[in-house]
């Protein structure tokens, strides 16, 4: 995939920034950001019409092939206003990654006007599950030309508003797991809506499959390779979302500290407050650099991309948790209130941190990959 020119990238950034500032912000103003409202659904549909769901999908598969960097900048701009929509886009795109790579024809950017509801284009995916290190709860059994899935899967993102999902399952007598496309509209699926800490406008549910028809959509190497591919690539997108959260937090913090008086002066003049704002800005700059580096490594197809994205994700999440907490800190009691957006960012940053598995588990798993990829640690003696 050829990287975009700066001009093309800037156009995409501008489009996403305007969309977030006008359309998404309006949807939240009207109906709030604590549930998936009809107004929010309209914003999701608009995002689809603007091709935000097609950025990483190759042109040959019906996307626009803009690449990871463009995708990251769109998710970042959206997350400055609200992360839930970015999570919805990320989930769908993650779900499509392997089927599209296998050439399966399940996503075409055609007949946008014929789309009746968001269910027509959204794809559900267990964004918070690490099926490599933790138990895969679903099993698949051959039936006719396809498979049927059984079991209980928790935290299926978009499970109650997408028509299809891509989920991992174990095949009997096989130690590896594989990904399957499953129809969520079948009678054999039973859903229970789940509420969580953050990203409240991104619907999540627990789902029970009872011999639900499914189609295999894993690469020949199996689910472990597929998951590695998805998590490496979209961990960078998650970094961009966390960065958007941080930038939104700093913007609101700066606005507030210039207006709020204590001790007869705007609180931005208090050196302790300046120090906190400075820490926030430093973290944002570092995060910008990490995302930029990861995108460059990806565009140059370097073998160390997975350790770059893993390390960027771990550090950006830690920074985002600190910065969003500091965003509340500088605003005092007001920062804790639901009327302002800081508390939502605090919750969203912590919710995104658990994507693709717990952070502590990622830290443990990082070392092996790092040593393998880094020549200096692999030199033989003698």
């Amino acid at each position, binding site marked *: 995939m050829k990287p975009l020119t700066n001009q093309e990238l800037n156009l995409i950034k501008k489009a996403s920034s305007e969309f977030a500032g006008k359309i998404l912000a309006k949807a939240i103003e009207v109906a709030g950001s604590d549930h998936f409202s009809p107004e929010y659904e309209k914003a999701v549909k608009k995002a689809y019409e603007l091709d935000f769901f097609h950025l990483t999908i190759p042109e040959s598969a019906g996307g626009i092939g803009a690449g990871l960097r463009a995708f990251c900048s769109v998710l970042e701009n959206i997350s400055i206003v609200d992360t839930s929509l970015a999570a919805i886009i990320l989930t769908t795109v993650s779900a499509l990654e392997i089927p599209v790579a296998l050439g399966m024809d399940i996503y075409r950017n055609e007949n946008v006007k014929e789309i009746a509801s968001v269910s027509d284009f959204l794809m559900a995916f267990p964004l918070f599950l690490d099926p490599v290190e933790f138990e895969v709860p679903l099993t698949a059994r051959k039936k006719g030309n396809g498979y049927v899935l059984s079991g209980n899967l*928790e935290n299926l993102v978009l499970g109650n508003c997408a028509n299809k999902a891509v989920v991992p399952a174990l095949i009997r007598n096989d130690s590896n797991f594989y990904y399957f496309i499953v129809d969520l509209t079948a009678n054999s699926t039973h859903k229970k809506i789940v*509420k*969580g*800490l953050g990203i409240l406008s991104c619907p999540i549910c627990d789902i029970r499959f009872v011999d639900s028809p499914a189609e295999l959509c894993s690469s020949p190497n199996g689910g472990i390779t597929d998951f590695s591919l998805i998590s490496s690539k979209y961990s960078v997108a998650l970094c961009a979302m966390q960065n958007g959260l941080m930038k939104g937090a700093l913007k609101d913090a700066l606005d507030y500290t210039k207006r709020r008086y204590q001790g*007869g002066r705007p609180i931005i003049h208090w050196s302790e407050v300046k120090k906190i704002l400075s820490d926030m800005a430093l973290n944002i700059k570092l995060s910008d650099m990490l995302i930029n580096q990861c995108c460059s490594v990806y565009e140059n197809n370097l073998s160390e991309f997975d350790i770059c994205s893993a390390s960027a994700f771990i550090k950006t999440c830690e920074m985002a948790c600190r910065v969003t907490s500091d965003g509340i*800190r500088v605003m005092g009691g007001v920062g804790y*209130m639901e009327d302002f957006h800081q508390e939502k960012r605090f919750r969203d940053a*912590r919710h995104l941190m658990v994507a693709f598995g717990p952070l502590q588990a990622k830290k443990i798993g990082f070392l092996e990959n790092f040593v393998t990829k880094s020549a200096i640690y692999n030199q033989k003696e003698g």
Partner: protein
Amino acid sequence: MRLSNKNKKYVSEDFLLEFEDITSSFRATKSQPATIVKEAREVVCIARKFKDEIIRPSVEMIDKAASEDPEFLPWDFVKKANEWGLYTLFIPMPFGGGGYNFSCVNFFLEELGTGCLAMANLVGVHYLGYTMLTSSWNLKLINQISREIVENEQKGKLCLMSVAMTEPDAGTDAQNIELMNNGNLGCIAKKVPGGYSITGTKIFVSNGHLSQWHVVHAYTNPEKASENTVMLLVKNDSKGFSLGKKEKKMGQKGCPASELVFSDCYVPDELVCIDNTQIASLKKRPSEVNEQIFAYIWGASRASVGIFGVAAARSAYEEALKFSIDTSFKEKLLIHQEWCQSLLAQMFINTSVARAACFEATQANAQHGLWKILNFKTFYYIMRYTPKKIVEKICTWICEKTISTKLCRKITFDYHKDYEVDRVDGWGSMVKVAGTDAGMKNCQLALELMGSVGVRKDRGLEKIVRDTRLLQIYEGTNEINRLNIFKRFLQRHCPETETFSMKNL
């Protein structure tokens, strides 16, 4: 063991002062009445039973109801707490209360807090109001209100207290003497015949909508507020008083943060806790008296917020422990893996160290704070072993005498040592920061360990995370508390330094 003459040359008064700053717990072993430990055991057992039978079964329901219904108030819960006698447990026995020593309140609050911080606050904030009332040393009013709380409880009626200090344009400014005069304080008390008329608004008043008495700080001259503060008691049915909105908070949703609106609200002199006319005979200036009152109140209340932080740290650790015992990673239970054991140990350390610091603050309060007279062994054992009716009668007789209030104020404000105020207030700030930071650290570690389980509403940890964040904000933000620690313990090394000063900007 007496210090030998040859070693007396090593004694430095300055160093001894610093040594005593950090050894209240150690020194308490000789000065504290022995049966206080028994009292602590009792209140912990009461709290644990209340947590298991009342708090735990209703945590989820109350959080959900408060999220979905803006008008929801946890009346059922506060009535239950009243039935169990929780609102009079720590009211001193001479005033008709349960008489448990205030040194035990933090053990009690930690136990309640591990059930739910919001519900623990529904009990704790009542004692904040009570502490604020007692800091005025208006014995007649303290006796009157104490008896009203006790009598109402016996009749099954509620009589809770709240504290109204923060204003829309003055948060930190309302709580620090150095900042008040430059602040934008708007709650004005105008002297009228027979009392005061208050006009203004107070916000973020915990329990405001559930309380019957509100301890209000208002100002006769907001431009010199530090010298012109009035502490008054306002009852719910007062003319000119109304309850405003409830804030929509991220967490601790079960405990309302209320707006109180005063519109020419008349408060008779009998309900004025303390004002400049009452302290005219003292040597200290009104601003020095107000500073000392704040120091005592914050010294006690911040230690309690610190213990809420310990409760949060403990709850997060317990959730992480349960998760580790039930969950496999790389085909082995987490609890069997060293890195997880180490993480859990770190969470345990955070909790235990913060708790130890809180006990030091508790002892600093017990020996040097508002309630120190209750810890003098003679007084303690007289109250414990004299029949309650006799003590109450004597107490009421003493409290009715104006000379008693004047004498207590004279001793408290004119004869109290600066180092005692430093110790109480400084330790209050220290454990507020340490405890609440420990709570947030453990919440973060638990989320990092538990992944998607930790962020689900139905699994417990996400509520602890939301509730804990507020602890770093109320009772003075942690930033203000750090500056206060500098003022109380470090400024003495460079006396020309000022704190909370424009010169430091």
